[in-house]
């Protein structure tokens, strides 16, 4: 048994930092694929259209919804960090972080409704 076996529960901002890190990692993994796909647009774009027909599958749309969430939550969470680090301190950071997560989910959901 280790001393820390009964370690305290993580706080909300620990989760916020984790979400920020994992969403950033997810976006970093996606970016090369994003760039490779866009490079299909050379010449008349026929190959890109071929990809778009493949991407019409609902499963792909779900994946895209996930990506919109990752981008939105990384953007909003990042803004929160920039404000915390560069402006006069404001309380309620846990609430703001939760709001960022909620807003990102809402945005992703609106995207899903539009494309599905």
């Amino acid at each position, binding site marked *: *048994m*280790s*001393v*820390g076996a*009964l*370690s*305290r*529960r*993580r*706080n909300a*901002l*620990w989760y916020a*930092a984790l979400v920020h890190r994992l969403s950033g990692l997810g976006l970093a993994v996606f970016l090369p694929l994003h760039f490779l796909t866009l490079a299909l647009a050379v010449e008349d774009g026929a190959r890109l259209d071929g990809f778009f027909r493949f991407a019409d599958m609902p499963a792909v749309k779900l994946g895209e919804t996930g990506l919109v969430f990752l981008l939105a939550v990384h953007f909003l969470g990042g803004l929160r*960090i920039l404000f*915390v*680090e*560069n402006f006069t*301190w404001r309380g309620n*950071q*846990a609430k703001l972080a939760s709001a960022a997560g909620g807003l990102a989910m809402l945005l992703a959901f609106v995207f899903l409704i539009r494309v599905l």
Partner: protein
Amino acid sequence: MTPSGKPDLSVSIWRGGADGAYRTYSVPSRDSQTVLDVVTYVQRHLDPTLSYRFACRVGMCGSCAMTVNGRPRWTCRTHVSRVAKGDKLTVGPLENLPVVKDLATDMRPFFEKWQDAKGVFEPSKTRDDAIEPIRPDTRQRQLADAGVECINCGVCYAACDTVKWNTDYLGPAALNRAWTLANDVRDAGQTERLQAVASGGGCHACHSHQSCQEHCPQTLNPTASIAGLKRLTALAYLRGEIEA
């Protein structure tokens, strides 16, 4: 049962070094009892070999911090009634520091990082100079005042997840101290200090989890202090005053 009519407390206390284990003791419950009272009772009445640290008993010296029911706390100002789960109490040594024995940790890494962060006042005047008046309503003095009541208890250091996964990280207390000195207009060691806290384990390693603020018994906000250091060091770097 005790005269107060309350059932005894079941207290698990860490015994041994890093590879030790929790041992459970039965301690009479009393009114207005602090966690430090409980630990003291165990040592005085049940097992005199129990090691722990305390001095002032009134929340000034910062030597009695322990892990109580999974949270780092100053035990002399922590009432059992506020933290006990049922009649159970678990008391361990602070996390993120080497265990010497039982509830006593080796605080050396904590204080060495205090030195590494240049948490020492560097005088700019001699004893022959007149005392420099510092107006309490200046912005810099107010920023320093906001963080100056640290009692070096190590609670924030034990609560910090960044300390846990980055052993080089100077930690909230040392950086908070550096921030108070960075706002001391009498200090002559500013550039060296900013250089010290801008290194690999310095203020930029902070993830703003705010566990330090959440746990600080003095209700300080080391995260805000560290954010201040991030700004100061970034500006100093852009001005070419410090190096990466």
